[in-house]
């Protein structure tokens, strides 16, 4: 749910309650005021009657057109005090009962005590009240409408830098070039957020850089001790040795060789990460593939593999060194993980290259093969970095690599 929706969810009911309270109070206050006005009118009529009686010594005539009903009733023994009350009165013209305000009092006229009742229906007041309430409701609705409209405009404007910042941090890559410029904002909270984003991104980039530097340095630092081990072995090999001793030595040679490959692969990955392979040429990939296969001919031969090439003429913009590594890894894999007298099939069509080979009967785990150090058990000759190097090269050169398995054929498709 969006923040604004959340906001409305809370604010609208609160405003509603407020408005209901306003309507309620308006209703009662207006009603009270109008009733008071009415009561004053009744009292004014009383004063007029008293004045008339004083001047003329008799009760006035009652006009039928008056809004007020005045009733004179003789009787009563003692004077009653003024009393104001609401009653239901039947209005013959409208044939309806109506609430009315009634003022009862008594008066001596020529020695005779009269009970006088003046009443006036509240009808006018009621209409007025309804009108006022209607006005209030319309006002409330219009206010609410404008409130929402303005809010929506203002909110979307206020939040714009927020969403922009989010977008920027979302597309931020630790290994990807320049730091994003966050939108200018004069809202303190957003400024704070941008500062933190900037800080976090900076930290991440720095840590990543450090890690890469570390990997690179570590790989380099391994080279000298490896060189020492190897040179010692090379000298030792010159000494006369028993068969057992040479066997042991070969174990060491093999391990040094593996370690060298590992170190080279790690360094290569770091360099691809660091985008140290610059310079892109248009390379005839079909020729590069035939060259590569030619280079690997002896290996194909040694394992009696048959390699079938279907190459259309095609160019690819790529770094020459990287493309060579890519092809080398692709074809070396196809050879290494093949079965004896198996087949390799390379197809180059338009913007994709597929290298398929016969091999193990079951598919590889497509979600894991491109991870670093992925290898199946007992593959000591394989450091599990070949495919991650392929993936890394593809990632940095806007190519895509996919693995598929069907009917005993493993295939890797590179598209660009």
């Amino acid at each position, binding site marked *: 749910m969006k923040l604004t929706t959340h906001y409305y969810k809370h604010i609208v009911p609160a405003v509603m309650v407020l408005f209901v309270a306003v309507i309620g109070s308006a209703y009662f206050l207006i009603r009270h005021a109008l009733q008071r006005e009415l009561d004053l009118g009744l009292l004014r009529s009383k004063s007029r009657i008293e004045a008339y009686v004083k001047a003329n010594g008799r009760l006035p005539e009652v006009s039928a057109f008056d809004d007020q009903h005045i009733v004179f009733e003789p009787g009563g023994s003692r004077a009653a005090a003024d009393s104001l009350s609401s009653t239901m009165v039947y209005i013959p013209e409208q044939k309806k009962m109506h609430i009315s305000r009634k003022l009862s009092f008594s008066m001596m006229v020529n020695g005779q005590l009269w009970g006088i009742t003046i009443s006036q229906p509240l009808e006018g007041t009621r209409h007025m009240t309804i009108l006022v309430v209607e006005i209030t409701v319309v006002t409330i609705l219009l206010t609410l409408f404008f409130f929402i409209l303005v809010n929506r405009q203002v909110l979307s404007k206020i939040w714009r830098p927020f969403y922009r910042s989010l977008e920027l941090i979302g597309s931020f890559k630790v290994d990807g070039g320049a730091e994003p410029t966050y939108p200018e904002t004069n809202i303190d909270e957003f400024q704070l957020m941008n500062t933190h984003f900037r800080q976090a991104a900076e930290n991440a980039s720095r840590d990543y850089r450090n890690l890469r530097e570390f990997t690179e340095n570590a790989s*380099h*630092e391994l*080279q*000298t001790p*490896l*060189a*020492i*081990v*190897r*040179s*010692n*072995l*090379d*000298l030792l*090999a*010159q000494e006369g*040795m028993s*068969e057992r001793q*040479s*066997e042991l*030595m*070969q174990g060491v*040679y*093999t391990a*040094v*060789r593996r370690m*060298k*490959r590992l170190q*080279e692969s790690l*360094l290569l990955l770091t*360099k691809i990460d660091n985008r*140290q392979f610059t310079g892109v040429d248009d390379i005839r990939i079909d020729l590069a593939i035939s060259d590569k296969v030619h*280079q*690997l001919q*002896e*290996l194909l*031969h*040694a*394992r009696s593999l048959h390699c079938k090439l279907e190459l259309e003429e095609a160019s690819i913009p790529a770094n020459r*060194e990287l493309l060579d590594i890519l092809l*080398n890894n692709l074809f*070396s894999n196809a*050879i*290494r993980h093949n079965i004896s007298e198996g087949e390799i099939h390379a197809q180059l069509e338009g913007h994709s290259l597929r290298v398929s080979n016969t091999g193990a009967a079951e598919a590889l785990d497509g979600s894991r093969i491109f991870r670093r150090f992925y290898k199946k058990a007992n593959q000591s*000759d394989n450091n599990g970095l070949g495919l991650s190097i392929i993936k890394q090269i593809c990632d940095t050169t806007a190519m895509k690599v996919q693995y598929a398995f069907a009917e005993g054929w493993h295939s890797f498709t590179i598209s660009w």
Partner: protein
Amino acid sequence: MNVLIIEDEPSLSRNISSYLLQSLYVCETVATVAMAKAKLDHASYDCIVLDIGLPDGSGLELLRELKQKNESDGVVIISAKNSLDDKLAGLGLGADDYLTKPFHLAELSARVNAIIRRRAFDGRNVITLDRLTIDLLCKSIRVDDTELSLTRKEYDLLVYFVSNKNRVVTKESIADHLWEASVQMTDSFDIIYSHVKNLRKKLMEAGCPDYIKSVHGMGYKFSLA
């Protein structure tokens, strides 16, 4: 023939010098740029084995100075950096060759040999050994007076063996020499085996004694005796 080894790792420079000594090269070792300069001021060398990362400076700087003084010494760079850029920088400054650590001593010896021969014999670069004559320019081999027809790999192999005469050359080093980085399989050992077998057969058919001996499955040794 004298060689100057500029390398700050004492055990490595010791090993290099004792291996090269078997090629009858006289080796001197120094560990810093300053010491190297002092040596180079007084003598010239047939070949310099130069490490790039030295404690008091860069081997590349030293190389630049050396080439500015127009010294004709051959230079092999041995570096812990194997990027193409560094290699190009080194070669651009006038180095003759570039080897990345860890290298095989046999490989280094082959490269040093090649440089020294190239410099010593200018145009005519021929190795004569017992009944073998190797013309390094035409890449041809003669046994006595008959041309021996070898494949490219067999030729490379023979030259490699000759450069490491009387020493055990391991299969690892042969694999790296023949294929550099492109082959990373134990399969390559089988291929080496068949190359060596063919080479031996061709040499013996041409009337040579069996120069190449297998050493406990570890490698091979080329010797005249």
